[in-house]
């Protein structure tokens, strides 16, 4: 078990992790970073924003960068359907009588 620091980079701003978290190995670090990115994004989405300009950078106890996760890599994004391809639902709607 070693200590890892999960710093947040948001546009130009850097927010350092002052405490660190003890984790078993690199796989646990990657899982924790994914979990944090998704946690932050989901609460931002519930407030009506999706900040894809953020990333997490993880340092080990010696200050070496050992993992990097751009938020956009933490989710599958389904792009919106272009208006011209958006199929009109049959009218009247089949679920309505």
């Amino acid at each position: 078990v070693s200590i890892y620091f999960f710093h947040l980079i948001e546009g130009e701003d850097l927010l350092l992790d002052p405490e660190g978290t003890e984790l078993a190995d690199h796989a646990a670090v990657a899982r924790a970073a994914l979990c944090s990115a998704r946690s932050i994004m989901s609460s931002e989405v519930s407030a009506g924003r999706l900040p894809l300009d953020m990333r997490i950078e993880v340092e080990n106890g010696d200050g070496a960068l050992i993992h990097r996760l751009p938020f956009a890599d933490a989710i599958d994004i389904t792009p919106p359907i272009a208006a011209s391809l958006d199929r009109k639902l049959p009218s009247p709607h089949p679920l309505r009588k």
Partner: protein
Amino acid sequence: LSDACGNIRDVPANQDIISEGDRPDQVRLILDGWAARYKVVPDGGRQITAFLIPGDFCDLHVTILKEMDHSITALTPATVASIPHGELEALMKERPALARALWWSTLVDEGVLRAWIVNLGRRRAYESIAHLMCEMHIRMEHVGLVEDGRFDLPVTQEELADALGLTPAHVNRILQRLRTEGLITLKERLLTILEISGLRRVAGFDPNYLHTREGSPRRA
């Protein structure tokens, strides 16, 4: 009640005071330090369901049960008194005022649990941290541990995250926002509330569930 606290022990930080599966043979009372009730979920994650501070009982009537369904851990070095249940029952019969105070404290514990459910179910992360701070402010004040709006919040970001269903990095980001907005400072685990009305507005905090105006002593 202090006479009944015959068995007083010190528990180091991060050690269980009582663990899931243990037989609760005594009623425990936190005299000093912070503790937390928690459940561990199968993926190894932990949910903290309560913070316990000096003057809080770890379940007044728990000795009725055969085994603990959750664990209680010391978050800081803690001093814990154990009271045999028989002794507590005798005291409650002898002193109706004490019995009433203990019932009151049980009802407040349930109020706190309801507030935590609302926090987890209906508030966003930012509001839920603000709410927790407002609550701990009043509870710490009630036991004389607040000075000029400042009190010890001796928990890590990871422990705050475990209490609120978040992650440490998320908690860090929200604390930074509360600082930037001039509502709090938090340095070396010392929390200063700079603008209590602003913090309460963010949290949608109503202290009614803590029933502090009842005037019953939390420290019996």
